[in-house]
């Protein structure tokens, strides 16, 4: 089925999220939609899926104009969507999830589960999925859950499939498998829209590439285009794709973690007997697929976890059992992985957020009173130094873009005297310009002799920043490998396997940190 979007425009108040976007997806092609976070990709797809109504423009399927009042219409017309966050019900079986919203019934309104099971088997067989229709979705690995989503779309005879950032939650191996599946679907005649911001994937699988920036189509490219070309189209200027850093000159061991286990509020062992050390002037990256204990590990260091066994010592001082404020006072800087949830108070001004974790002591507080004059001067200085773009230091932080918010967090944490810097997902959801900036500051911090821990699920970020990489899987560290370990090896380790031979790549071949 041929999908055509003509002049789609969608405004939210004064913001134009989509500005006259034209897009043609031919039958049996994979069309990549490439753009930064906030470029308007998701809005466009929500218009296509009937979740938003376009202010202008039209959607054509096989040259026929369509009017979608909701996802139901879009599905009926043959459009299917595989969401970034799966829209599945964990306690239902695969068959139940597939039939949900499209239930076939027998006489008396009884569900026809047998038909749904047969449908799942039939589609699985067609694409070589090995999928049990009666398995609970909750018990399936993430990659398999995504296949359930795909089957769900296909079971409604979707001729156009939209994949919204499908690889964000997958291990590298699962990503490779998904690429194969997408290829099969294409060969079976399905048109595919592939939304992503990862250049590597686009070049690997896409037939054509449309690049969106600030709500507009800024160009089309062939998959043969180089990373640099695609990146500059996406960002609107030429970008540094690699992080420039000298070889680390590691000093003494600063942070020593021994036999650390963390039990979460539900009583589960989320970090299992982990040991590592970080030296002054080196970056230890903690890699792994989301949800393998990295979050809890970083929280344990900062004092946010209550049930912690084992030892954490920083320069000989034990951190276990200390309150968060004492850990911060001991010189630990922390960038939490969800800045809106844990890092910033959205209603507070930039200035107030800059003193959030120093509300006890001089120079911000004297005799219980806030030193507003000092705070304002400090905030002016830091917003300039960290290039926070806003209408002034009294702007509520919630109004800033993700990148600027992250710079506020970074400015706050890096303007203390640090003896350890822990950054969790430091570049999640921020624009490329800010990513460059954040990476630069992290490397600078390292070069100033501070031990740095970067927790990241993005393999590119890990390989770009790390001097050593600890890979976590199910709460344990699978292994600690050199920073130039090849992606294949890291991918295997992220799936829990310990490879026999650690292959490495030469430093000058590490590429694509940013996108």
């Amino acid at each position, binding site marked *: 089925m041929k999908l055509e979007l003509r002049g789609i425009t969608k405004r939210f108040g004064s913001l134009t999220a989509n500005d006259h976007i034209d897009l043609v997806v031919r039958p049996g092609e994979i069309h990549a939609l490439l753009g930064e976070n906030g470029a308007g990709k998701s809005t466009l797809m929500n218009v296509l899926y009937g979740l938003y109504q376009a202010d202008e423009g039209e959607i054509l399927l096989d040259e026929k104009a369509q009017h979608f009042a909701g996802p139901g219409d879009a599905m009926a017309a043959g459009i299917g969507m595989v969401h970034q966050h799966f829209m599945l019900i964990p306690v239902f079986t695969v068959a139940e999830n597939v039939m949900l919203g499209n239930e076939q019934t027998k006489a008396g309104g009884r569900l026809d589960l047998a038909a749904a099971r047969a449908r799942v088997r039939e589609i699985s067989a067609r694409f070589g999925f090995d999928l049990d229709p009666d398995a609970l979705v909750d018990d399936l690995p993430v990659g398999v859950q995504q296949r359930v989503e795909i089957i769900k779309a296909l079971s409604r005879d979707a001729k156009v499939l939209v994949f919204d950032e499908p690889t964000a939650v997958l291990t590298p191996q699962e990503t490779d498998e998904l690429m194969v599946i997408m290829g099969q679907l294409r060969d079976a005649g399905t048109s595919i829209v592939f939304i992503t911001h990862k250049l590597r994937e686009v070049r690997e699988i896409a037939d054509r590439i449309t690049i969106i920036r600030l709500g507009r189509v800024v160009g089309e490219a062939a998959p043969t285009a180089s990373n640099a070309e695609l990146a500059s189209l996406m960002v609107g200027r030429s970008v540094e794709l690699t992080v420039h850093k000298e070889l680390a000159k590691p000093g003494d061991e600063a942070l020593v973690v021994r036999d650390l286990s963390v039990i979460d*509020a539900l009583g589960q062992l989320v970090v299992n007997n982990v040991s590592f050390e970080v030296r002054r002037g080196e970056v230890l990256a903690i890699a792994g697929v989301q949800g393998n204990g990295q979050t809890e590990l970083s929280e344990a260091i900062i004092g946010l976890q209550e049930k912690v066994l084992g030892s954490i010592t920083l320069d000989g001082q034990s951190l276990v059992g200390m309150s*968060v404020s004492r850990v911060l006072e001991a010189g630990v800087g922390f960038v939490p992985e969800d800045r809106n949830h844990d890092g910033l108070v959205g209603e507070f001004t930039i200035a107030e957020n800059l003193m959030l974790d120093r509300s006890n002591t001089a120079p911000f507080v004297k005799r219980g009173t806030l030193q507003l004059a000092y705070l304002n001067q400090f905030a002016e200085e830091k917003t300039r130094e960290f290039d926070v773009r806003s209408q002034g230091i009294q702007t509520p932080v919630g109004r800033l873009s993700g990148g600027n918010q992250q710079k506020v967090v970074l400015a706050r944490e890096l303007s203390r005297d640090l003896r350890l810097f822990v950054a969790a997902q430091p570049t999640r959801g921020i624009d490329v310009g800010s990513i460059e900036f954040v990476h630069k500051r992290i490397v600078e911090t390292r070069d100033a002799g501070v031990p740095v821990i970067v927790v990241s699920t993005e393999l590119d970020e890990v390989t770009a920043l790390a001097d050593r990489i600890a890979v976590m899987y199910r709460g344990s560290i699978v292994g600690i490998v050199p920073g130039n370990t090849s992606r294949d090896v890291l991918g295997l380790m992220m799936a829990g396997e310990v490879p026999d031979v650690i292959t490495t790549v030469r430093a000058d071949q590490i590429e694509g940190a940013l996108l």
Partner: protein
Amino acid sequence: MSDTAVAATPQSPSGGSSTPAPAGTPVAPAPRSNQILRDILGGSVVISILAVVLALVAGGILIALTDEDVQTASGYFFSRPGDTLQAIWIAVSGAYSALFQGSVYNFGAVDFAKGIKPLTDTLTFATPLIAAGLGVGLAFRAGMFNIGGQGQMLIAAAAAGWVGYSFPLPYGIHLVLAVLAGIAGGALWGGIVGLLKARTGAHEVIVTIMLNYVAVYLVSYMLRTPGLLQAPGSNNPKTPAMLPTAVYPDLLGSSYNLHAGLLVSVAATVFVWWLLSRSSLGFKFRAVGVNPNAARVAGIDVKRSYVTVMLISGGLVGLAAVAQVLGTVTSGFSSGIDAGIGFDAITVALLGRSRPWGIFVAGILFGAFKAGGFSMQAGEGIPVDIVLVVQSLIVLFIAAPPLVRAVFRLPTPGVTGKKKPVRLAKAVAAK
């Protein structure tokens, strides 16, 4: 919908691909009620004013509907509609003019001194409302619903009153001690709530409501028991009169009820303003109030701040009780001494959007309603309940900012330029 048991999701052990657990320990932040609070307190001054206007309009309609002359005239509305309109005008304007003359200036009085008396009455009524409103508002700002004003007032009244009538002490010292006892009593009753929330995660709304009952019956019991609070030689559940050394001095002489408690309420307003906008403690309160998670990650002791804020909040509510016991009703008090102020304080705090000076103004407005309500009933025969209805409507309109915005066609703040996240109703973002 299916034959599979919909049981709690079994989590796979040891992390694995299971849902990333939200940041560990149970600080028991109440994100949902926080959001409600944020919505209510985020409204602008305009919303507050419009809510009052709307409530007065609705009150006017009620007055007209319940007025007998209006009812009679509407019986022949189609032959002489003018009569009905005139009757409505007389009823509504009469009522609101009585409200004004009973609360600000009585134009029928013989001289200025008598004419201005209603205003001083308004301020007298406002004195405890401001103090209690500050207490409730401060708790709001730290993310806590303090519904326990009644209990805190009763305990504070008992403490202040006991010191006030029991110990003959010199002028000044006695008053100060009695006031401090009241503050301590309120702080104790509020502090229990903070402590329970911090230690056990018990929700403060339930705890404060239950502590209201405890305080009501405890104080009633003490008032009925000789040797505790009951006046010696009396069978009434009432305390002895306050000693003159412990009473707030009159501000404008004995012909007015206005007492020095007003100055204390003004001072409390200044104190809360300083606390919230200039102090380190208030900074932490506000951070905990809007984002307890970020506060915790930033090293702010969220649990401790729950306890501290409830101590201060209870202390401020205690000041309201002190104003009642040592200022307004100095002849000894019974169990009705709180006079509903603990609950009115919630309205006052909401109307003042939990800003100290907003609460101050709202407290005076509610004082005016109380003072004027009586003269409305006395002069125009309009039940004082109408005033209560107006007060309640104000809360309703404030609690529903979208309603006020819809009525006056105001734009919704914060919508422009923000993409709303789209979520399908049934869908679950698995894993």
